[in-house]
């Protein structure tokens, strides 16, 4: 169906970047990244069910430099999506719309996700006895 070119509402490129809008778009971007990550999760489950040998192969991929980089990125995405999601749940109840708290809570999600990502990896390396 041919449609007339109607004006669209302004999108990302017209806004000045701020913590609140960054938190909003990054929540979506991390969600999409995590969705791709679930393919890896399914692969990992299948590998475990397949058997000892194939599982070791997949664990080898995961433990490689690229594998660790991807998993580190996914950990960050997970923590950011978690914090951003909880922030959005608060906003769904009508709270935190005041600009000040909205911005500071957005900034907090990033602080949380960076610390939680580093903490998770630190703990994992501790468990492995590497650190």
């Amino acid at each position, binding site marked *: *169906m041919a449609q007339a070119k109607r004006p669209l509402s302004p999108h990302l490129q017209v806004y000045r970047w701020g913590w609140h809008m960054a938190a909003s778009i990054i929540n*979506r971007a991390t*969600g*999409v990244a*995590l*969705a791709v990550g*679930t*393919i890896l*999760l*399914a692969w990992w*489950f*299948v590998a*475990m*069910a397949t*058997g*000892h040998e194939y*599982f*070791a192969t997949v664990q080898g991929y995961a433990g490689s430099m690229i594998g660790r980089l991807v998993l580190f990125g996914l950990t960050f995405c*997970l923590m950011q999506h*978690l914090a951003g*999601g*909880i922030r*959005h*749940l608060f906003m*769904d109840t009508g709270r935190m719309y005041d600009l000040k708290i909205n911005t500071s809570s957005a900034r907090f999600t990033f602080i949380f996700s960076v610390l939680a990502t580093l903490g*998770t990896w630190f*703990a*994992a*390396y501790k*468990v*492995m*006895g590497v650190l």
Partner: protein
Amino acid sequence: MTDMKTPIAKVRGLGSAKDGTHHWLSQRVTAIANIPLILFVVVSFVGNAGKGHAEWVAWLKQPVVSVLMILFVANLVYHMRLGLQVVIEDYVHDHGTKFASMILITFACVLIGALSIFSILRIAFGG
């Protein structure tokens, strides 16, 4: 107000009036359920970091772990399906492409869920 359109013609194609909030609510409910589930998964993955196949299998075989992981995967793929749907609705405007994309993500989410859950069950019930 001098609109000659019938009421039905005005609302046709705008979507159902019956369950507009269902998607929104489901997304929130699955988000809430995801919080404890993901914390369990992260703690488990960290706790088992570097372990071999036998140890991972022994961990997953525990009934509570198997059930929690199945719930995690099911809730995850549902949440993911709902989220990806909104992304497609926002960015894909061509009707045909939108329709195809919706089917594709639905199939992908179900497939990812089925592969994961089947694997978990196979490990849980396996010898």
